């Protein structure tokens, strides 16, 4: 049984005006466990706090009930007071007799009656309180960034800048991501490579940053501050530390008919390749699907031409295990497949392309060396139709496409249209749109320039069908404003394909126990207040893996994620919330029900040997809560049928005691 002290606050007249504080402290005197009860003008004042401290000493109190304002006001204050008086801060409960009593009731009798009941409930709860101590865990001062696009790069640079080591894991042979494939960037039209590649070089040269390119994360264990991550480094059959990136091998490689993914298959590369000139790391990679030497042991040209002797056909996948304190997900996006959009004839005509392909066609380092030539016959197109919202903003019930807006298409289409008209004024450019969305800084001005200065034909309406006929693409569309059908003979049709999270995100989310929405975008811990954190502590979100974003937004989120990581890594120890769930292993069924409702992945299972009643032993599966990860919502406690799972500070018995006291 506890020795409880009750302290009723007048709060000047705020409480005492409607509640007979003397009556409250008298009534609570006889409650079980209460050994001392008093009232005072301002409990939160220094004098009031001293009163509590004195009473603790004098009456050997083990628990404290303060009947005062909302715990949201002064719970922390009184917990500190308790700690100073030498009792555990979690042995304090507040009865909210101001906001939820004196301020809402006018009548002294009613107010006093209710205040007594609220006090009794708090006393009943404290009787069952146990001292709680926040758990502490160390922090590994290293961060992992998964994905080496602009989001990952920016996050890594910012973290490294604060002095913490960072590893970037990129599944492609080079970092750079989608931005490296872009030509110009809206709304300023500066060249993507010009602003990205220096950052890539910064990453390569930063001694705090390690790049694991051509690698992926295969396993994540542990929790915030203490992740154990396994990284699989794919064999690239080239010794990364020796290769100078001279490119001799790529020139001499006899296997030259490999679709070049960097140019989205619009031209070819060799079996040993460097994705693009400014690749980081600038080392060659052998594509095992095409290399004759690897496939049937014949060739070996690259090995012969490599002066540095970097080729290693025997190289194996390598597994690296590393500890991290924080993980940033920056897995990015991809345009969706156009396979299901037969109406736009994407698979029938080479001249129906996606916007990303258009980027490569206009890029000086692209397959056409920057000249806008249509892929089928390398002729200059005179009529270009841009189709917006292909696969974006679809019906929930539609079998193809996404419900959400891909956000970036309006702007890059405006960019493409404007650049085309700028370079090739003889070209007719049509843009079919549902809405034009331009809410960013200088965005609407940019779009209006496309229309007003560059004479791009913006038509509100959707393209119904594209039919290849001869060397033309017959575009059938509706103009909703003019309310008429249009037929355009186009040379090139560009589809603004919706974007979706990279396919690698889903398995990664499972490994990280980070939650995702139905579209496979990572969910944030709070959509408004914690937008760059995942609900899983220690896992942060950067870039388009969280939702469609343009570059400025991505970069700012990347910085924000970095600052959160820095804040975490700057700590030597993590102090947890002591009000966490814990499972009584003797009652646990190991049924996984709790795990399924835990938003933080705080619950894992282990097999443990138990002594059975008949003196034999048996292995049973039991739930284990990681107190460093648990946030204390208590969802698991209700999901648990046996009641093995309980929440400290809000235990079943405590809440029931409150219910009982209120209903007494």
């Amino acid at each position, binding site marked *: 049984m506890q020795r409880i002290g009750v302290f009723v606050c007048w709060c000047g007249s705020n409480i005492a005006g409607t509640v007979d504080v003397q009556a409250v402290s008298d009534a609570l005197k006889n409650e079980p466990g209460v050994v001392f009860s008093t009232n005072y003008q301002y409990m939160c004042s220094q004098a009031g706090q001293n009163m509590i401290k004195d009473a603790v000493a004098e009456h050997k109190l083990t628990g404290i009930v303060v009947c005062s304002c909302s715990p949201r006001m002064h719970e922390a204050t009184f917990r500190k007071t308790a700690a100073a008086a030498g009792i555990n801060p979690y042995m304090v409960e507040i009865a909210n007799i101001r906001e939820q009593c004196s301020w809402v009731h006018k009548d002294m009798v*009613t107010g006093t009656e209710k205040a007594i009941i609220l006090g009794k409930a708090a006393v009943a709860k404290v009787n069952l309180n146990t001292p709680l101590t926040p758990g502490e865990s160390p922090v590994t001062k290293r961060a992992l960034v998964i994905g080496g696009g602009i989001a990952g790069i920016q996050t890594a640079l910012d973290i490294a800048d604060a002095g913490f080591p960072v590893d970037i894991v990129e599944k492609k042979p080079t970092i750079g991501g989608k931005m490296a494939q872009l030509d110009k960037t809206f709304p300023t039209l500066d060249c993507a490579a010009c602003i990205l590649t220096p950052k890539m070089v910064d990453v390569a040269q930063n001694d705090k940053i390690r790049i694991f390119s051509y690698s992926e994360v295969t396993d994540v264990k542990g929790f915030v501050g203490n992740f154990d991550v396994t990284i699989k480094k794919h064999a690239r059959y080239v010794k990364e530390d020796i290769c100078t990136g001279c490119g001799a091998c790529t020139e001499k490689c006899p296997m030259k008919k490999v679709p070049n993914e960097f140019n989205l298959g619009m031209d070819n590369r060799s079996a040993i390749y460097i994705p693009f000139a400014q690749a980081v790391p600038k080392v060659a990679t052998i594509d095992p699907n095409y290399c004759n030497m690897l496939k049937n042991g014949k060739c070996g040209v690259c090995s012969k031409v490599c002066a540095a002797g970097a080729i290693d056909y025997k190289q194996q996948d390598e597994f690296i295990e590393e500890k991290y304190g924080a993980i940033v997900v920056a897995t990015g996006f991809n345009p969706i497949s156009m396979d299901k959009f037969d109406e736009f004839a994407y698979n029938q005509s080479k001249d129906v392309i996606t916007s990303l392909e258009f980027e490569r066609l206009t890029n000086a380092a692209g397959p056409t060396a920057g000249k806008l030539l249509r892929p089928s016959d390398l002729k200059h197109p005179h009529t270009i139709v841009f189709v917006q919202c292909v696969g974006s903003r679809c019906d929930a019930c539609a079998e193809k496409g996404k419900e959400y807006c891909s956000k970036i298409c309006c702007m890059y289409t405006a960019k493409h249209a404007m650049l085309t008209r700028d370079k090739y004024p003889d070209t007719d450019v049509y843009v079919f749109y549902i809405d034009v969305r331009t809410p960013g800084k200088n965005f609407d001005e940019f779009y209006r320039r496309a229309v007003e200065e560059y004479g791009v034909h913006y038509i509100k309406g959707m393209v119904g069908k594209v039919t290849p006929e001869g060397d033309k693409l017959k575009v059938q569309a509706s103009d909703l404003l003019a309310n008429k059908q249009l037929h355009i003979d186009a040379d090139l049709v560009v589809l603004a394909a919706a974007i979706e999270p990279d396919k690698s995100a889903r398995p990664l989310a499972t490994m990280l126990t980070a939650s995702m929405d139905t579209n496979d975008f990572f969910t944030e811990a709070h959509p408004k207040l914690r937008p760059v954190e995942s609900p899983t502590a220690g896992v942060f979100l950067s870039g388009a893996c969280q939702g469609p974003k343009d570059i400025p937004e991505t970069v700012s989120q990347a910085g924000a994620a970095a600052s959160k990581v820095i804040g975490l890594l700057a700590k030597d120890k993590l102090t947890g919330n002591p009000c966490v769930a814990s499972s009584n292993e003797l009652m646990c069924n190991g049924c996984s029900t709790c795990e399924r409702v835990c938003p933080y992945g705080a619950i894992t299972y282990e097999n443990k040997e138990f002594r059975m009643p008949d003196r034999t032993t048996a292995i049973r599966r039991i739930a284990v809560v990681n107190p460093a990860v648990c946030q204390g919502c*208590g969802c698991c*406690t209700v999901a648990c049928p046996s009641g093995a799972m309980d929440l400290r500070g809000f235990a079943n018995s405590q809440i029931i005691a409150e219910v009982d006291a209120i209903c007494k």
Partner: protein
Amino acid sequence: MQVKEYKPLIVAFCCNWCSYAGADLAGNNRLSYPADVKIIRVPCSCRVNPMFVLRAFQRGADGVILCGCHPGDCHYTSGNYYTRRRMALLFSMLDYLGIEKERTRVEWVSAAEGAKFAATMNDFAEKVAALGENKRLEDLRCKR
């Protein structure tokens, strides 16, 4: 002859982050609601076990209301979604057993909705009062 006015007893479980703060705001704004409503603070509405609801009725509560963050706004991201399913099923079962449906309610009240909190409690208390004492889920041993 003076008839003693019947006062319903209402237990309100409020989540710490939204509804409890909403109740505080109602207090700050001096928006009154019946003193019959007694609030129990829980970290999240998903902490409320159906057993607590039944316990309240056993001990003589006439109505039980759960308040949590609006769907999508849960401090713990998904807690109130589970609450919603659990309580939908529980309430439906209670209704199936013939317990008056007006005795149970779930309401989403944000920290900014002090007025909504007070209005909800006024309305709920009124509805429960109209039903009279809870006779169908009471435990005679605990008769008030």
